């Protein structure tokens, strides 16, 4: 779990490792070091993911780790859905799943 403390401390109770970060630079560094270690899935709050989009793109096509944005305490920014949308656009050429909205 990566993100601001308030959004992620609950996950510690589930047995996930949490890495609270407060600014983008440490966020990027932590993300990189986590990706190099043995983590298969890294959940990252949407607020932080938005700042680190370039970093995330690097892990898009690597088989592991899976970097998954989830909403934090500050609410849903729609970033997660946007990532899915991006995949669809990449594969199909245009967005055919989400345009019913």
């Amino acid at each position, binding site marked *: 779990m990566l993100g601001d403390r308030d959004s992620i401390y609950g996950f510690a109770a589930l*047995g996930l490792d949490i890495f609270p970060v407060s600014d983008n630079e440490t966020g990027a560094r932590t993300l990189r070091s986590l990706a190099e270690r043995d983590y298969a899935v890294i959940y990252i709050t949407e607020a932080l993911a938005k700042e680190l989009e370039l970093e995330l793109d690097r892990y898009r096509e690597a088989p592991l780790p*899976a970097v998954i944005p989830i*909403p934090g305490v500050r609410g849903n920014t729609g970033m997660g859905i946007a990532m899915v949308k991006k995949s669809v656009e990449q594969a199909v050429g245009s967005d055919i799943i989400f345009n019913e909205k």
Partner: protein
Amino acid sequence: MAGTQVNPTRMELTRLKKKLVTATKGHKLLKDKRDELMRQFLEKVRENKALREHVEEGIQAANKNFLLARAGMQEEVLNTALLAPKQRVSLESGVENVMSVEIPKFTFKTRTPDENDMFSYGFAFTSSDLDDAIQSLADIFPDMLKLAECEKSCQLMAAEIEKTRRRVNALEHVMIPNLQQNIKYITMKLDENERSTQIRLMKVKDMMLAEAHGYDTL
């Protein structure tokens, strides 16, 4: 590609024809691969979308619960309560091959045998809201993992589809027409050579006849 140099020889012609056969076969196969990948991708992406909506809702609800829990407890008490997690999750990741795309498969194990045995604090000094909050997170967690798996698969498949599509297009619109054009060029050139040889022979025959017997066929 008639502009580029091709040797108008029989050998080259055979080589090009073989290449064309391979290219056509490859094109067909890749096209099939693309269609099948696309079908599976669309299925996955729909699942992905549903899962994500579900998970986001769940997390939002859990966050609300946490907010309540925090409101009802002192910050220090809350931090202490969650300081030493009892539960640990370990992930095992396998790979599954879908149309030559390796998509991850995650299974998780918890350290304590009972999945619900995760409260790392006594119940006396913590608010019941905290229990609810943690429970709601725990409920959503398997779906979060599924989401991770699904979303990663989608990303990988999208990349593969893009690659395959490029290959199909390159074969269809560049390789195959070029080969056909070259083959046509060589065939015509060879035919032309043959005709010119024939004419030359006829001409020589006429000249020889005229020389030997004084015939004038012209």
